[in-house]
């Protein structure tokens, strides 16, 4: 029999040696242990869409990796947002991990203290893989995920840049060049409009609330800022009026009839049927546009960044993240899941299928991952270029929904001929007290 007992002497020498080793700067043995929380059960609530699909499809890999069981449900976006808020308010949410829309929920979640702080987890090498570092996320992602105190309250998951989709065939037919500025775009849209043939130069969101995402891009290109230093809303200033005039001109002179009621779905229908030559919306619509079963413009779509405005060129940016409920009892296990959700492998899958764009630069700029992207190269290029000119497309306030409804209704009114300046002023007068009421409490 070999004696396995450790004598005091060997123990001492061992400790000394270990101490010496650590002095030499060799890595300490603190490594991410994925299996540490094996046997834990997690509940996840997701918004329906490609991100949720990507998680559910591959969740078995996570369970194999960690031994953590995951129950997840996907709910249509609008309903998911409501359900999450109601559950959080109850104090005992039924989920550990939550999928959130930053551009709608960031301030609300922060102020109510519903999300757990991930900062300590990210600093803990036994919980965090070495490649997951803050600096890897894009600036917009960090802006969304961090609160005023610099705490990471979620991990940025997928970003939505606004890009310009255009129909190459219609452009060729009318001999129009791809616009580089918003003014050029207006001119191009007018040339491309041919009501007799039923084709129009531009299509985009006219529907109240939804239209704010498109308008926000014009607004920032005109040099607009949503809030001043004191947190007052600025959407009736000269930049806003100019942006609205542009919006009004495009959507009344060069857009299909009825555009005032169009959300992305109706816009996409018009574009995929080859009835509209240009469309500005989020990057995520490439898969349906390139799907022969759903689109008549497969292979004819051009992708590029949103044209420049007089005060700059930006891509309005929206996004979603994944966070941990502050009330969860399994925060560490939940953190492992969040980490896996934004991991290189999962991010690559999302990007390659065109279902979303990871906030992590290391994924977006990896040539190997890029080569696996199934969407056209132009699409990927528009994504990479948009990342460089990204700017948040909505104000970061609690009453975002009211903002979108009220200012959005003003925009829709301009489509039936109302005066932009007067409508924006009216909307601002209506919105200001709501904002003040929400910020004072």
């Amino acid at each position, binding site marked *: 029999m070999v004696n396995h007992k450790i004598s005091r002497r060997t123990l001492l020498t061992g400790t000394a040696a270990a101490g010496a080793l650590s002095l030499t700067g060799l890595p300490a043995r603190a490594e991410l242990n994925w299996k540490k929380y094996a046997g834990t059960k997690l509940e996840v609530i997701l918004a329906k869409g490609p991100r949720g699909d990507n998680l559910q499809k591959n969740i078995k890999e996570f369970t194999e990796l960690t031994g953590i069981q995951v129950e997840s449900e996907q709910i249509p976006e609008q309903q998911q947002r*409501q359900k999450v*808020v*109601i559950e*959080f*308010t109850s104090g005992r949410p039924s989920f550990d991990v939550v999928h959130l829309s930053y551009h709608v929920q960031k301030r*609300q979640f922060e*102020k*109510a203290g*519903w999300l757990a702080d991930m900062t300590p987890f990210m600093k803990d090498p036994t919980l965090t893989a070495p490649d997951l570092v803050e600096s890897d996320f894009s600036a917009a992602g960090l802006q969304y995920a961090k609160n005023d105190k610099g705490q990471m309250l979620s991990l940025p998951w997928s970003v939505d840049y606004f890009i310009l989709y255009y129909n190459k065939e219609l452009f060729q037919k009318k001999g129009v060049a791809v616009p580089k500025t918003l003014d050029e775009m207006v001119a191009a849209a007018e040339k491309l409009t041919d009501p007799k043939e*039923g084709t129009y130069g531009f299509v985009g969101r*006219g*529907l*109240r*609330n939804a239209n704010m995402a498109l308008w926000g891009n014009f607004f920032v290109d005109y040099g607009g800022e949503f809030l001043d230093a004191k947190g007052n809303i600025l959407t009736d200033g000269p930049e806003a009026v100019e942006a609205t005039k542009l919006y009004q001109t495009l959507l009344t002179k060069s857009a*299909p*009839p*009825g*555009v*005032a*009621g*169009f959300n992305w779905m*109706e816009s996409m*229908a*018009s574009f995929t*049927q080859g*009835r509209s030559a240009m469309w500005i919306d989020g990057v995520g619509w490439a898969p349906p546009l390139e799907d022969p079963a759903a689109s008549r413009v497969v292979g004819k779509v051009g992708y590029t960044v949103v044209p420049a405005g007089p005060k700059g060129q930006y891509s309005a940016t929206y996004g979603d993240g994944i966070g941990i409920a502050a009330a969860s009892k399994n925060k560490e296990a939940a953190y492992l899941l969040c980490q896996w959700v934004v991991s290189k492998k999962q991010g690559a899958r999302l990007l390659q299928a065109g279902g979303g764009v990871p906030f992590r630069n290391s994924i977006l700029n990896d040539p190997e991952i890029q080569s696996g992207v199934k969407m056209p190269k132009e699409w990927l290029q528009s994504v990479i270029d948009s990342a460089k000119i990204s700017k948040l497309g909505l104000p970061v306030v*609690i*009453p975002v*929904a*009211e903002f979108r*409804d009220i200012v959005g*209704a003003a925009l*829709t*009114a301009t*489509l*039936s001929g109302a005066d932009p300046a007067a409508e924006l002023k009216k909307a601002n007068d*209506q919105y200001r007290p709501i904002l003040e009421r*929400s910020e004072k*409490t």
Partner: protein
Amino acid sequence: MSALTQSTPAAARSDAAPEKELRPPSYWPFVVPALVVVLAIIIFPWVFTIWMSLNEWKVGSPTSFVGFSNYLRLTSDPRFIEAIGHTLVYTALSVLLPLVLGTFAAVVFHQNFAGRGFLRGVFIMPMMATPVAIALVWTMMFHPQLGILNYLLSLVGIPAQLWVFHPATVIPSLVLVETWQWTPLVMLIVLGGLAAIPTEPYESAQIDGANLWQVFRFITLPLIMPFLFIAGMIRMIDAVKSFDIIFAITQGGPGSASETINIYLYSVAFTYYDLGYGSAIAVVFFLLIVLLAAVMLYARQRMLWTEIASGA
């Protein structure tokens, strides 16, 4: 009369007083379950809604008592005032159109002709469909560029319409869907009424040489009036609280051109999470419904009296 009925049990009680054990058992315990249910699911939510409407109650923030300030806010809220108008127009149209068309359909289907049973079945099919599902189908049909409605109009030389995509036509277009779906209900009710009318008045009218319109105006219509009132009442309640069709097709748009009180209430409570203000809207909305129902009931009551008076 009432004094008499009251005195009888009182006398019985004093007789029974000596033999306490033989007193008939109280029926109160049997009422308790129903009472509890009513209290829990009708009375309590109502009292609580009124309480919420008196508070500043926002999800994620502490609540505070503010008295009637939510109600004062309503009076200067242009969206709310507009929403009342939209609700009234929407309701009026979606009560009247199904009533007129449903009565006409009932008169037609009351006649004997080949395939009547089959056609009746076909006619009531819209009523069986799920509102949200048909709303989505109608949304596609309304599409100004790709929808079938504009294609059909183009066949007869009428220019393309914007339907639900223009503020001026959105409410009539929504009413079209509502009418399509609920005309069959009116028809069924009126058909029941027609079946109950005796044949004698028609025979004598025939002898007197009345034409079809006169028969309808002076015999059929007065006799089915009570049924029409019921149908109108049901339609009114449904139309005032209509939500699914509007929400699924326009979400209150374009702009806020089809935003009824219900849609606005939903936005305030569940999109803006302003539960206090939303509750105030709910209370006002409830009062409005009570008022409309009272008017309808009063009209019905009056009609019955005039009928009896004219009959006598």
